[in-house]
């Protein structure tokens, strides 16, 4: 007996099935929906960053003073390198969309070339981000953390082109080194499963001695004043702050301490740029897989380069997210 219904009587009608109202394939549509959900994840992170920043609006680090380095160059170049990274990522987006376009024309040689360039761009970006992390972790000048977890930085007033400017001074330039009584505790001496991280180069006592013997060095707090700059303390206040409140010497940044300001800033920096870097990395891996498929002629045989278009969507999305990270982490 014939149990399946072969004929529904709706053939040729709108509800008869087989319609594609969105004129997009299943795979492409699902990639779009994945992108929407991933965009919500990223906006969750960025909104959380905004929340913390609004909470500490009066003492948040100024990004221009944090990201000032360019590889192979000395000196103070705020934002130049990040702008370069942004350009690299936009450029690799362009080569990706050119690969998609070549795919529409079934031009295998061109798709191969543009996919290759896209992968190179992605690798340069990930490498740059790793370098940026390295510089951030290593730190610049060093600072002293107070009992309450605030950061005190050091600097002096210098006259540049007739203008008084506050110039940061590194800890090593003024601290007076003393004999060290404290050595790093390792597992091999004493308790087995107890060890500690690397000790800072200086102790707070040494910093205080150095501050006493260098009359031009002043302390700068986290608090942002009305001119939008960090507040610099007077000489007496500087000495008093370090003596009474100084607790820990901080060099560089990690998930516990951050010499640039509140440790939340470092946490968010690692988390958001790290999550984005992970996306770029996985994008590069997927691009490499597709690249080899192109070379092997998989899509030539399939008769369509739509797969290139789908990974292209993901790759552009990574670029899109970076545009926002760039604005909210480095510009605003």
């Amino acid at each position, binding site marked *: 007996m014939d149990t399946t219904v072969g004929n529904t009587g709706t053939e040729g009608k709108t509800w008869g099935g087989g319609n594609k*109202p*969105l*004129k*997009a*394939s299943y795979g492409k*549509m699902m990639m*779009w*929906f994945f*992108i*929407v959900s991933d*965009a*919500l994840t990223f*906006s*969750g992170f*960025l*909104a*959380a960053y*905004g*929340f*913390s*920043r*609004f*909470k*500490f*609006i*009066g003492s948040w680090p100024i990004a*221009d003073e944090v990201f000032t380095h360019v590889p192979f160059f000395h000196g103070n170049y*705020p*934002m*130049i390198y990040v*702008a370069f990274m*942004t*350009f690299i990522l*936009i*450029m690799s*987006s*362009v080569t*990706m*969309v*050119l690969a*998609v*376009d070549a795919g*529409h024309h079934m031009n295998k040689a061109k798709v191969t070339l543009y996919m290759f360039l896209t992968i190179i761009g992605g690798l340069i970006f990930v490498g740059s981000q790793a370098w940026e992390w390295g510089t951030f972790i290593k730190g610049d000048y060093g600072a002293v953390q107070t009992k309450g977890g605030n950061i005190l930085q050091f600097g002096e007033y210098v006259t540049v082109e007739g203008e008084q400017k506050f110039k940061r001074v590194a800890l090593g330039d003024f601290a007076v080194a003393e004999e060290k009584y404290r050595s790093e505790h390792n597992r091999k001496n004493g308790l087995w499963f107890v060890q500690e991280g690397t000790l800072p180069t200086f102790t707070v006592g040494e910093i205080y001695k150095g501050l006493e013997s260098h009359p031009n060095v002043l302390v700068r707090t986290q608090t942002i004043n009305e001119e*939008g700059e960090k507040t610099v303390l007077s000489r007496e206040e500087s000495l008093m702050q370090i003596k009474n409140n100084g607790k820990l010497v901080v060099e560089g940044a990690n998930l516990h301490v951050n010499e640039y300001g509140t440790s939340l800033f470092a946490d968010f920096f690692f988390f958001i740029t790290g999550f984005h870097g992970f996306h770029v990395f996985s994008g590069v891996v997927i691009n490499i897989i597709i690249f080899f498929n192109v070379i092997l002629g998989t899509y030539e045989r399939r008769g369509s380069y739509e797969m290139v*278009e789908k990974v*292209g*969507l993901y790759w*552009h*999305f990574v*670029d*899109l997210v970076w*545009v*926002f990270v*760039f*604005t909210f982490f*480095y*510009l*605003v």
Partner: protein
Amino acid sequence: MAHEHKLAIFQGLVKFKSNTQKIWGVLIFLTIITAIEVVLGIYKPESLMTKVIGMKLLNWIFIILTIVKAYYITWDFMHMRDETKALRRMVVWTAVFLICYLVFILLQEGGYVEGVWETGYTKKDF
């Protein structure tokens, strides 16, 4: 499917001859915007530091330029311009609505917490 591309940008103000040309055109436009952002970010002109609706004018400019960039990346690189209206709205309206909602709530709350701390832990509602 999306093999035919709409080749005009800026509401038809600029028309390109081929899709490849349009891609390069959009790249130039995005590069110019990024350059403007970086220059403004380095020099921070004093005239843009006035507050408009609770935020510095400069920051508003940055955010608007970012959204403009996002628009052209989505519309021309991701070919949203060539998709059907239904797909476009499904993706864009959903994301824009939810993100605006989330950002509004979190920033509002962050500002409130800051206010409580600044005013010696005095709450504003009773």
